[in-house]
């Protein structure tokens, strides 16, 4: 189905109290927009709104100042009801320079609030952003509520007493702006002040200047004569399940999930990886967490990373490796060795725009087919996907469970959006997790490396250092009976069938598929996997509020698929599959279940908007209606 977008019916900033708001901070890479966004997120979470964030930054580390390709942005959607995406259109856009304005203004709703730093709209910056005229003066912004302030001048005045100099003084611009936006939504400044004190602990004068700028921005809102229609907006607190909450990014949730998995499996973990965007944050987080039974190894390349992980698994600990698409492609031969030798391994793929270098900092779901099929030989392997930042925690535990219980590599799919996005996360009770301790083989009597659990079909894990279990494994086909090299034709057939049966059998050990919203049968099922969860969920929720018969089904287990999935999908008149690729999952569903599922694809490096999926639901429902 062709991608189209519907404007969502929302009340933007027309009342003093609004149900939800989308704010985007945009500026130069060096303007500190990510820091601004994360501090605003913190304050918003503490206020009690539900929220979802989307950091959107360029691949260039230090792009030339003022360039459009150097614009870094941070978007946050917060509100009184459950929020699962970073929002479609913007209610508030904060732009620190002309480049940030030109690249983001199209997403601001009519009547939305535009905050600009007039001081940055110099002739030079306007030229870099390819503006012929100054948009602040030519009337082109008349349909928005514009709050143009010479923030640069305000900041320099606010930090004057600290004698930082012009350049360092201007670096506090982001905190001044944050102060103003915190005022706008009645958010408390305490958490930001505390985090600035921690961040600049070694440079107290910088901390003080930033705090002064923050307070000055806030005071400006309180005291300045603002244009009509700009005032403090109240966003009621969300009703959420009681508990202790924290903000969680997908990358941290995944890292902590691996730590939790290693504790539940009662096994050490070696995380071997090679830096690549957007997967490196996992390596950084785990390298800083070696107080747990985790060790990290920055290998010389992607191949060495997967191989070191396999070596660790052979030695009796759990090897984990991580990368994005291009790196996963390089690991393919190693992964197949782990399949052949039946050793546990977790491979985390934080997907990004492809092919080749593609869009390294942008998100996509285009590695599903590679995960399912991208290896030589008949090489089946479990594949699971996380759907929200917080879900990365649970999925990481599940990957460790499956890998160690079934002695198999497991591919865990995340993506650039999930890795960087954050959401409030209800901290689980550690004591409530069910442990799944690994049992290394120790019985010498009757030992052979080909012994396997007849129920799970998992091969024994006999680690070096155990007397009497000396044995050899390798990539050459192994005898079903002894584990020794075997070129026997019947044996190869038997082993191929065994590898397939082992992975298929995991379907008996995973939950049956349910609809996460709506009924288990009906007119239309919108079926997704991975990070499209949020947008699909909101779209289906809105469609159901309109009275439409739509359900949302979100699949975590992509190989093997839940054993009732075909039956479930057959209970619907129609199936729509939105994906951030050209239709990889829909093809699987169509071929496996012979269902006329329809694809909705977006490959723009950006997540789906709610309105895009809602538009597709409307068209699909209309189509079903006209047929019946």
């Amino acid at each position, binding site marked *: 189905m062709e991608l189209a977008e519907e404007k969502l019916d929302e009340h933007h900033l027309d009342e003093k109290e609004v149900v939800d708001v989308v704010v985007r901070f945009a500026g130069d890479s060096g303007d500190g927009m990510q820091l601004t966004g994360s501090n605003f997120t913190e304050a918003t979470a503490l206020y009690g709104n539900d929220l979802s964030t989307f950091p959107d930054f360029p691949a260039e580390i230090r792009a030339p100042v003022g360039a459009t390709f150097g614009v870094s942005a941070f978007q946050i959607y917060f509100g009184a009801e459950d929020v699962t995406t970073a929002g479609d259109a913007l209610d508030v856009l904060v732009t620190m320079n002309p480049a940030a304005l030109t690249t983001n203004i199209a997403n601001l709703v009519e009547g939305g609030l535009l905050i600009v730093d007039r001081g940055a709209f110099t002739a030079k910056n306007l030229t870099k952003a390819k503006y012929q005229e100054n948009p602040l003066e030519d009337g082109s912004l008349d349909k928005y509520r514009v709050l143009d302030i010479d923030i640069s001048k305000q900041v320099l005045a606010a930090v004057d007493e600290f004698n930082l100099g012009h350049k360092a003084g201007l670096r506090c611009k982001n905190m001044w702006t944050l102060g103003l936006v915190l005022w706008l939504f009645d958010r408390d400044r305490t958490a930001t002040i505390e985090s600035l004190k921690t961040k600049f602990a070694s440079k107290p004068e910088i901390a003080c200047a930033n705090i002064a700028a923050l307070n000055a921005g806030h005071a400006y809102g309180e005291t300045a004569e603002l244009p009509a229609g700009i005032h403090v907006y109240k966003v009621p607190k969300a009703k959420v399940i009681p508990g202790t909450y924290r903000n969680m990014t997908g990358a941290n949730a995944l890292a902590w999930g691996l730590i939790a998995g290693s504790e539940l499996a009662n096994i050490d973990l070696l995380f071997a990886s090679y830096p690549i965007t957007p997967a490196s944050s996992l390596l950084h987080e785990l390298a800083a967490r070696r107080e*747990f039974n985790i060790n990290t190894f920055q290998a010389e390349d992607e191949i*060495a990373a997967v191989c070191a992980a396999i070596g660790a698994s052979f030695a009796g600990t759990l090897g984990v490796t991580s990368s994005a698409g291009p790196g996963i492609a390089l690991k393919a031969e190693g992964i197949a060795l782990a399949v052949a030798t039946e050793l546990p391994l977790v491979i985390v793929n934080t997907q990004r725009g492809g092919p080749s270098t593609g869009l390294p900092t942008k998100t996509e779901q285009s590695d599903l087919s590679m995960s399912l099929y991208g290896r030589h030989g008949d090489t089946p392997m479990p594949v699971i996907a996380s759907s929200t930042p917080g879900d990365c925690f649970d999925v990481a535990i599940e990957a460790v469970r499956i890998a160690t219980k079934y002695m198999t590599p497991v591919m865990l799919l995340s993506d650039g959006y999930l890795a960087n996005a954050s959401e409030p996360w209800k901290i689980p009770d550690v004591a409530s997790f069910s442990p799944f301790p690994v049992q290394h083989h120790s019985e010498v009597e009757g030992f052979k490396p080909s012994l396997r659990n007849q129920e799970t079909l998992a091969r024994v894990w006999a680690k070096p250092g155990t007397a009497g279990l000396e044995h050899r494994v390798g990539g050459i086909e192994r005898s079903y009976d002894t584990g020794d090299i075997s070129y026997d034709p019947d044996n190869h057939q038997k082993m191929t069938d065994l590898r397939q049966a082992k992975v298929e059998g995991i379907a008996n050990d995973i939950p049956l598929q349910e609809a996460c919203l709506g009924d288990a049968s009906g007119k239309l099922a919108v079926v997704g996997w991975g990070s499209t969860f949020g947008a699909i969920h909101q779209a289906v929720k809105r469609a159901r509020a309109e009275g439409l018969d739509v359900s949302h089904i979100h699949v975590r287990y992509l190989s093997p698929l839940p054993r009732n999935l075909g039956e479930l999908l057959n209970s619907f008149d129609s199936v729509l599959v939105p994906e951030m690729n050209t239709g990889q999952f829909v093809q699987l569903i169509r071929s496996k279940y012979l269902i006329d599922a329809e694809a909705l694809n977006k490959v723009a490096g950006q997540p789906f908007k709610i309105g895009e999926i809602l538009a597709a639901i409307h068209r699909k429902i209309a189509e079903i209606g006209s047929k019946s």
Partner: protein
Amino acid sequence: MNQALPKLTIKDYASDQEVRWCPGCGDYAILKTIQKLMPELEQPRENQVFISGIGCSSRFPYYMNTFGFHTIHGRAPAIASGVKLANPELDVWVITGDGDGFSIGGNHMLHVLRRNVDLQILLFNNEIYGLTKGQYSPTSQTGTRSPSSPTGSIDFPLSPCEVAIGSGGTFIARTIDTEAKHVSAVVTRGHAHSGASFIEILQNCPIYNDGVFDQVKDKKIAADFKVELVHGEPIVFGKEREQGIRLNHNTLKLELVDADHDDVLVHDETNKVLATMLATMRGPDFPVAVGVIYREEKASYVDESQQQLITARAAKGSLKELLHSGHTWEVE
């Protein structure tokens, strides 16, 4: 390890698998020597792990009655690094060849040596691709005629020991497949070395490159074509030990001189400049150096990693505390 180890013999180190190298292959001699040496190294057999890549030499682990892992082409050093990091108690060996170790796996070889991962790396150099039926390898001499170079190879070969020194290797030695005593002595010293020990074993392929090392292997002439390096001893060779090697201080090159010349070099395993020169010597102008060419005491990667883990784990992590770290808030 206070318990006395059971006394094992060569038989305890032979697996039940039928050895399948070509008749006359140099690998047989190396296998026998290593199997025989193993009991003398006094390691618990269950702690010994042999890891290989792909190629004729890489079948080696199947024939050793220890733990063994026959992996994928060129990647044995990376897999072995993972094994050793996961369990530093293990005695980990890498078996590789000139193609496996320096062509497809060159990058891993460079980095495992640079990191000084505590492994014994035995590189069987036969200057040819055997398992794929005789193509030239990165150590084949220029002009080697092979199925993929019918009119002679045009690549310049690399010298494994020279590259190993250049990569930051801390124990570099060379020996010859059939010289069991010398192989044993060199490997024993490599085994005792803390960090990566790199041992090049010149190995004859009777099928695709027969006789390539005849000058240094043929008892009748070998004395004139190889020089056995011994730390602290003059570098002399020849049937009558009549020739020596000196450094010309003007040209900064090695030269052959009479053995009784004042200037004859005394081998110093710890001199990297000298080691690099000795590693690259080859016929017809110079003898091939065998023995321990270079040795350096340097922190081993695994020791350093363990040290960092001990520091990090001084206070054991608590998952519950981690989940509750930083800003949290209560919803009633």
